[in-house]
């Protein structure tokens, strides 16, 4: 399994033409990409929260009730897998464009 994950890491790096980098540099780039993808997913989520739901969302996210938080996120993002895919691919494509 570990080998498989490493291979996948290599495959992303290869796709970006960065497989010759040392691990530290790869890690830096991956960290930045993870942060970017995460922020973009949250922005999408924010776009799905209507004005009337903002107070409720604030209250849920401030509280400690994880079930309620998950439920809220699930309702707002039932297509999470697709969004995740889309954002990963979009970030990859934007980086590779005219690189």
């Amino acid at each position, binding site marked *: *399994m*570990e080998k498989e*994950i*490493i291979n*996948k*890491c*290599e*495959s992303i790096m*290869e796709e*970006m*033409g*960065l*497989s*010759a*980098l*040392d*691990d530290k*540099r*790869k*890690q830096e*780039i*991956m*960290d*930045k*990409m*993870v*942060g*970017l993808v*995460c*922020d*973009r*997913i*949250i*922005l999408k*989520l*924010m776009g799905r*929260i209507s004005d009337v739901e*903002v107070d409720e*969302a*604030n209250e849920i*996210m*401030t509280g400690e009730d*994880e*079930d309620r938080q*998950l*439920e809220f*996120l*699930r309702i707002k*993002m*039932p*297509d*999470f*897998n697709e969004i*995740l*895919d889309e954002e*990963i691919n979009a*970030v990859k494509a*934007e*980086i590779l464009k005219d*690189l």
Partner: protein
Amino acid sequence: MENKNESKIWEKDEALSKEPKKVESPETFETNDDNLEKAKEIENEEKQETTGKEVKEGKIETKEFDQFIEDVNKFNKSFEVSKTEKPKIFDRFKGLLSKKETADQRDYEKLSQDILKKVFEYGKVNPDILNNDSIKEFLEKAKEIANERADRVDKKIEGLNKQTAEEIEKINKERPGLFDKISARFNKNGLEIVIALGLLAMLAAMPREALLDKIASGDVGMQINTLLSQLNLPQIHSFLPAKYANLALIASTAAVLRVAKSDFLTRNIRKYFGSNDLKEEVIQEEEKESKESEGFDVSSREEVVKKKDTDESFNQVAGSSEYQEAFKKYQEGELDDEEKKEAGDDINESFNQVAGSSEYQEAFKKYQEGKLDNEEMKINKEELEMLNTLKEMIAKGEKVEVKYKKGPDWEFGWYVTDIKEKKGKRPSVSLKRFQGNDAKYINVDLSKIELAKKKY
């Protein structure tokens, strides 16, 4: 034939590393006769076609390898010259540049990536080629080129981050603090939220029988693997540094289990599945096998369930070799500082979250000390031979078909998905069998199976 080829490559490798390299100076290279150069280029182009073919499994053709090293040398020389004489050298380089007359940084990047890919392919067949001087020199250059590319990738990410930051700023003005709260929730437990959402999305989208199979399989390695691919998590893992791949796996395993334990998800799973005969059948079969193989005297169903739960939780939490290895290292203080911090955080968090109860921790301790079960591990010579054969076949990635002793009869068509070995206990084997479009999973004692085609 294969050995002969390999030995030839070795001879060539040695020759390459011993012989002073015939490196033409850029001037000499430039003043070669045009016709001769042209002829060489045509010849190189032809050879290049051969080099472009996939490396044949298990062997490297000597001629192909020689040509490859020649190309690598050419690349190395050309790259050095390009630093001072751009782009004069490139017309001498077109054999490697698809007949292009000139080349730029991107051509070099593309070319270095192609050559690098080839180096990896060759390296798989014969790792010693990485000691070849030409290849070592190339790898340094490829790294230099990749670093320049990485600088551009950094700038791109910076630009994208700037755009995103502007959007965040805008949304923060409209809805102060909400982005940060959700972000904190997303980051609180690493991948957990991603897995949880993915799992929930999967619940909504997957045919219940298919998901049921995965849950019923009891094979945590396969379960996690399947879940990760179902949840598109490999992509997330792809962004994680290889160094932390192990820990990420542990963390995500733990997270899946934690999520699976949450009341919220349990409620949803119950709601989603309701009662299901197939699930009952699989679980009962597992329990039956478990009783038979472990000699567990059970008059009370509760006792079986309790033991089964403990074993399963235990397998799931601590069963993966990665987890055990990392945990062992962590306990022995063998991880370096950075790893230790990561491992400490991840393992403590995962362990506390998933198996946080003192009951599980106690069980884990006992497990490590081999005290979980007083039953001695008795395994005969034939079983040991079969076990080793199974391991070898699995390690080679072979599909391992076995027959399973069901009552007085042997049932064919079972495949080994995992071997579970616990200190102080007999090894057990996870089996899978296809039934139409569905698959059935059981976990049985070693004595219950034999290879369909006996090899030992």
